[in-house]
Structure formats: C-alpha cells, structure tokens
C-alpha cells in the first residue's frame, strides 16, 4: 500500500482536528527551539499529518525527515490545553511509515537487530550481555581500542561503546528468585517489570529496585515469562510487534495476581501504562489491557506512597536530577523523584535548569539522529555543569546512558557521576546497614 493511503488509514482524524493551532506547545518543543521552524514544531507536525490526510500534500522525503526529527519526548502533551495526544498521532504516523518506506541501510540494520532479533528474546539479550561482559573484561575492549578498530563506526556509535555499563548475563530471577517477601508491615503485592535491556545492562539497578520495594513493605513477584515492553517498537512504528509483546506481559502479570506493576524506567513505564490505548481496538484484550495499565506505577511513586525510603545513611554530596521525558509526560510523574532525592540526609539538592527538557536520548534517537541529539545534549550539559553537582541522578536507562555520554563529552569525568535514582537510594540504604 502507498504511504498516503496507509496514513489515511492509521491516523486518527478526530485527534488531528482537536489541535486548534494555538501554538502553546511550541516553547516546550526541543526541535522547534533549535530550529525556529514551524514544520519542526508539534503544531507544524500535526498540520503536516493533517495536510497529508486532507490530500493537501504528499508524504515526501521532507515529511519523513520531519517525522524522524521529532524526539517523541511528548513535552508537547502536558502543555496542550486542548489535550491533543500527540504521542499517539506520532506513533500512528510512524507505523504507516514503517510499513511502507525503506530506511537507509544502517538505520534498517539497527532497527532489525534491535526490534526483531534482540528485544523480544530475553535469552539472547542475556547472551549478548555475557558477550559484552567478556568483551569488556577479557582485555578485548582494550585491544580493540588500542588498534583503533572502532574507527570503523560513526563517531556517535563509537562514543556509545565507551560509556556502555558493564554487561551482565545473569537474569534478575536468578539473582533474587521470583518472589521476595515484604519486610515489616505488608503494603501490597508488586509485580516487578524488569525490562529487557534494563535487566542486562542495568542488572544491579533491577536488583536494587526489588530490594527497595521489599524494604518499603511490598511483596515482590518477578514473573519470569514477562518480556520487553514494546516501547521502542511502538515509538518507531512497529506497533503490531508492540501489541504482541504487550499481550505476553499482560498474561504474565495477570497470572501473578499483582496489585501494582513496578517500573524503574520511564520509557517502559509510559508505554506499559498505555497498553489500554495500544490494544484499544482489540476486543479480546481490551479489558485485560485496562487491568494492566491501571496498575503500572513508577518505583518513585511506590516508594513515596510507602513514606519514602528510611533509614538512609547521609550522602554528603551535591545532587541534581534530570527527568525522564516519558516518566513526566507519559506517566505524569512530576515531582516524586526530586522528593526522594531531597529526603536524603546530608545531601544538597540543586534543581537543574530545564530538567524537564529532553536530553536527546529518546529511545534510539541518539543513534539515528546524532546531530540533533548532539545539540540537545550539549545544551543540557551546559546547564548540568552549572549546577556543580557531584551526582546527576536520572530515572530511565536511556537517559542515564545519554548523561554518561554527556559527562564524557563535556570532560566532566571524575567530577561528576550519573546514576539511576534507585541505585543512589539503595547505596544509602546499604551503608546505613
């Protein structure tokens, strides 16, 4: 099918018409601020989508470029008084594009490896994790670097190699089992969403999440049948694949009979919470998706509901926080992470100017749109460096990697470290013990 027809089919025309073109979303949009170009703003992109649906314009190469330049950060949503679900419109557009348009070879390669061959197969991810660990520990990495073999890669991919955390091939369920009982008074039963990449690259963060939850009074179940959330798929136009993954997750967590589903990655959590919209047209799954979506919580919400994390050893450091876009704009979790940080004894919390602005990570955006991502990261690091913080906390693995890359690029290594909020809290907890 042609892209034009496909777009007419996938785009929700009512939603397009809900945009009254007030422009209130523009100041929030990173790509508009960088370019000042109407077409690179949320209002402009919606107008382009509508123009295609109305037959006023063909979805030409400029159209495709504009849709991929969008970070999908959804900063345009909470500020839209008309309540336009921009994220949905973008996914619908990308779905149509993914089904009908060929990307350049290297983008195709990244997409196929990531979406089809890696993410949906947790055991392959663990294997990859073990490989990575081997690469990093065996001296191979040193060798590769010494012989400058990485020169073969584009600069931004080379940089990613440098900041990758240590891989881990041990599944969370092997480390802590599939059930960890609550300590103290019981507050409820939480299903731990371990994430796909999260469990390999950020294994310790997952272990720490489970511990914090148990300590806060939650029974934690980790259903081993769960899989990737499908967020990267959905944001990149692979909605059908995302739907299949969603069904597997719903099944796994329903069987575990949980009260809440805990996420420690804003990018995953936002999609998990929107499974109801993802499966809206699926009669068979609609109700179960609603059940699932209504139970999803970010770890920071669950911890705050339990009165925060106590007791904590003091951390005599300056701490700042860069928000996760999808945590804020998708899950509407706005102040909870900061409140947890502010409660750490001894720590001095300094707010980061424009902490609500995308860092440029945006899923795999920094891999496929290195230029714009680089500009945003540079701006971000200027603000970060002004905080003079020792610790830069985030609440999403993609953001964490991007912040590490930023610290590396800005030459702030040794002066500042980027950590996941959960790891920081867990460390303070451990030290107290």
């Amino acid at each position: 099918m042609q892209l034009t027809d496909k777009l007419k089919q996938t785009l929700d025309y009512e939603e397009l018409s809900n945009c009254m073109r007030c422009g209130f979303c523009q100041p929030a949009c990173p790509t508009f601020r960088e370019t000042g170009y109407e077409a690179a703003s949320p209002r402009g992109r919606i107008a382009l989508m509508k123009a295609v649906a109305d037959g006023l314009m063909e979805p030409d190469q400029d159209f495709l470029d504009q849709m991929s330049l969008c970070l999908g950060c959804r900063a345009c949503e909470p500020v839209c008084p008309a309540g336009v679900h921009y994220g949905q419109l973008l996914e619908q557009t990308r779905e149509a594009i993914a089904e009908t348009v060929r990307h350049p070879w290297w983008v195709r390669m990244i997409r196929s490896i990531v979406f089809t061959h890696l993410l949906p197969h947790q055991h392959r991810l663990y294997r990859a994790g073990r490989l990575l660990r081997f690469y990093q520990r065996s001296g191979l990495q040193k060798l590769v670097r010494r012989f400058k073999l990485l020169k073969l890669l584009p600069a931004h991919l080379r940089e990613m190699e440098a900041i990758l955390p240590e891989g881990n091939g041990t599944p969370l369920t092997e480390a802590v089992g599939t059930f960890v009982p609550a300590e103290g008074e019981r507050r409820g039963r939480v299903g731990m969403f371990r994430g796909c990449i999260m469990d390999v690259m950020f294994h310790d963060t997952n272990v720490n999440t489970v511990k914090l939850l148990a300590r806060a009074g939650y029974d934690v179940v980790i259903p081993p049948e769960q899989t990737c959330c499908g967020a990267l798929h959905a944001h990149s136009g692979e909605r059908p694949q995302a739907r299949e993954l969603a069904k597997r997750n719903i099944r796994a967590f329903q069987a575990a009979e949980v009260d809440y589903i805990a996420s420690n990655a804003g990018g995953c959590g936002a999609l998990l919470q929107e499974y109801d919209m993802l499966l809206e047209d699926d009669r068979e799954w609609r109700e179960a998706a609603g059940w699932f979506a209504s139970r999803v919580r970010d770890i920071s919400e669950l911890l705050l509901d339990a009165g925060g994390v106590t007791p904590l050893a003091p951390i005599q450091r300056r701490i700042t926080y860069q928000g996760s876009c999808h945590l804020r704009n998708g899950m509407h979790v706005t102040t909870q992470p900061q409140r947890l940080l502010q409660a750490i004894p001894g720590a001095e919390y300094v707010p980061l100017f424009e902490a609500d602005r995308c860092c440029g990570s945006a899923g795999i955006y920094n891999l496929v749109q290195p230029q714009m991502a680089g500009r945003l990261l540079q701006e971000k690091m200027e603000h970060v460096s002004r905080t003079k913080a020792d610790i830069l906390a985030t609440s999403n693995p993609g953001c964490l990697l991007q912040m590490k890359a930023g610290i590396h690029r800005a030459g702030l290594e040794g002066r500042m470290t980027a950590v996941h909020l959960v790891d920081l809290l867990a460390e303070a907890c451990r030290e107290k013990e």
Partner: protein
Amino acid sequence: MRMLASQAKTELKALLGEAYCLDKPEALVAYSYDATPMQQALPDLVAMPKDTQEVSEVMKIASRYKIPVITRGAGTNLCAGTVPVTGGIVLVLNRMNRILELDEQNLTLTVQPGVRTKDIHAYVEEKGLFYPPDPSSMTVSTIGGNIALGSGGLRGLKYGTTKDYVLGLEAVLPNGEIIRTGGKLMKDVAGYDLTKLLVGSEGTLAIITEATLKLIPKPAVQRVMLAMFADLTAAAKTVSEIIANRIIPATLEFIDQGTIRVVEAFKLIGLPTDMAAILVIGQDGEQEAVERDMAKIAEICRQNQAVQTRLAHSDAEAEEVMTARRSALAALSRLRPTTILEDATVPRAQVAPMIEAIQHIAEKYRVQICTFGHAGDGNLHPTCMTDARDHAEVERVEQAFEEIFAKAIELGGTITGEHGVGIVKAPYLEWKLGRAGIELMKNIKRAFDPDNLLNPGKMFAKETRKRVVIDRAADR
C-alpha cells in the same frame, strides 16, 4: 507555481540563502495557517529575513514583481491575519528576535519584532521593571504580532493594552523604504502620529522591524482572588459594581460554568465546577493599598451575591489561576472538533446585558456558546464549540455571531476588542465604521501601499454583510 515569477524566486534565494527561502511543500503547509479555525491557504514561498536590511530588500523585489507579502510573527492570531489567501510570500520574522537595548534612564526597551512577549516580561522584570501587556498567548506570541494587532491582555483594565506602550517604531514600507516613527519620547506632536497608526495595522501598511517600548516600575506586590457566583448575571453586575466603586483592579476576568469545567479538566487546581460563573480579580501595587483594595472588592462581591471569595495564598497559586484562565480558549476546543471564538466588546457598564444577550442568542440558534473574557474591559470572548463538517450547524453559528456583533454595536461596543479584523471580521467592519470611515481607511491603505502588496484580502472585505435585525423579544 501560481504567481511567483521564477526570476523573483531566484533573486530572493540569492538574497536570503536557500535555507531561509523555502518553497518545498512542507514549508508551504507549515506557513499556511494561524490559530484561526477553518482558514488555510498555501503561500508560494516562505522567506525568513535576518535583519531590517533583508526585509527591505525582500520588499524591493516583491514590489518590482508585484508579489503579495504576508508578515508573520508566531501565527497565533485569531482573525486569519497571516493566512496567505492570495498566495505570495509569507515573511517570517522570528529570526529577528534580539532584545536590542534596555535604557534604564528613559525606562524604554528596544526590541526586534520576533522577540516573544514572555521573554520581554522575564527580561525587564529581572531588572525590577514592568511591561504590562500580557495577551494569553504571550508564551508564544511575538511583540511584532502584538503591535500589529494592538493586543490586550489580562492586565488591560488598569494598564491599558499594547498601544499604550509603543513609543517608537522602525518599519519597512512596501517599496522597501525604511521609516522611523516616534522615539524614546513621552511627548511628540511632530506631524501625524504614525506610531499609533501602525499599531493595529495588521501588517497591511508596513512591516515593523524594530520597536521601542515604554516600561514602568514593577509593582511591589500582586494578589489574586477568585469570586464565585451561583448566578451569571450577579457575576456580570459585580464587574460594573467594582468599577463604579472607583476601584481599578489590574485584572478582572469573567469565566462562565462551561469554561470553568474544561479549564479545570486541563489543570486540576480546584476551580468550583458547580458555579454559574467566577470572577478572577487581581490587584497590584504597594502592599497596603493592595490589601485595602482586595478587602473592599471581596466586600462588593459578597454584597452582589458571591457565594464565596478565595484569595490565592502565594504567588505560585496566583500564577496557577492566571495560567488556567489563559488556557480557557484552547481548553474549550476539547469539547467539539471546531472552536470559534469571538471578541465582542462593550462599554464596561454593559457587560451584564451583553452576557445575557449572548445566552439568549445561543439558545435561539441552538448552538453551544461558552463565555469568558476580560470583563473589566468589557471585552468578552463568546466561544462556540461546533463541527466544521456540519454545514447546517455552522450556518447557525454564523447567524448567532452576527447577532452578537449587532448587539455589541447596539450597546455602544465594537466587533473586535483585541483580536483584529483580518479576514474573519472584514465583512462586518463597516458596521462599526460606517461607509465614510471605511473609505478613509482605504485611502490610508492606498497612500502606504498603492499596489496592495501587504497582506491583501485582509481588513477590507469585497462585500459588507447585511446588517442583521435584532430580535427584540429575545433580549428584553
């Protein structure tokens, strides 16, 4: 290519550079609209000059080839002022966004036209100064757009509107010549007041490329209060009462129930959704005077059957209320696919009869109209939620609005208080001005722009609408 000679295009591209002179479909679509519902037309070219000189050169080329030029700031106007109905060049000024000079001796600020209104506020307030005009769109709108439309805002009642703060302008005429009007002067009667003439000229006379604005000292404190009413008319009467009591609040906004509900749905700040109307009342100045005024206003509200009055306890809370009010229009658009907002303005004392009339007219034509607005200025925004695809309904909406305009004029008011004429009010302009007034304005237009290049199709309609006769039975 509809009307732009390829030679002209080549010259413009050479002048501005390929990156700032666009004719790809994406760009044409992106600059085909503004915030006006149901209005869209593609230009032939989008030009983004970086300074006055480039604007002047563009105009020289445009006038040589007789190409229409539509100046655009942020495209947030509500009168289709930037919709290129005749094709031509959309001249986007948002690259000219520098603040040029703050003169703390003369209390003036000189800016380029593409500076955002909100950025002006932030800049001067940091220095303890104040630029009062604050259209609800200020986080997006440009000062050039504000000036070209003479925009008002929530502080208009006490401080006036944009027109009261423009001291001097630099502008490019259609033939490319650059003029300067006014200056850092509080008094100036040398010749006709061209500054005032360009304010509100909607991009039809000249292109504003620089503006010198008047600043005042920043008031020491600001307070905001909500007054809630179970009866619409009581709320409207309170507005006139407050002013009759010789109190001029900085802000005196009216929000009816329909509007309260959608605004509350957008921002949960605890607005009372069961009230028929609320007034948002703000005062600023010296602490003592402000407290005194607020107490007196609360008293007047109670005397006029306010169910409750509530004072915002912090600046943050006050700002929240004001932000919620500013989102009223866009939030209303949640209700139905198409939202049409009007701008009828009456003398302050006539606010109550006008609000009543709007209600009757909405009922008569079976259309859904919510009303909010700068009640203290007599400037109301009856807003109609409809669906552009339902032609029968849209026709009734048009009839309803015509009757609202007619009523406003009958009450001594005008068809637009701050949103401008553009395309959408053009057919009604004569109702307000009369034939002689229109002719005079057309002559002014000809003197500036003999070839009708600047924003053609705006302000003056080909035909004036037949004046509707108001059904007297409906408005008692």
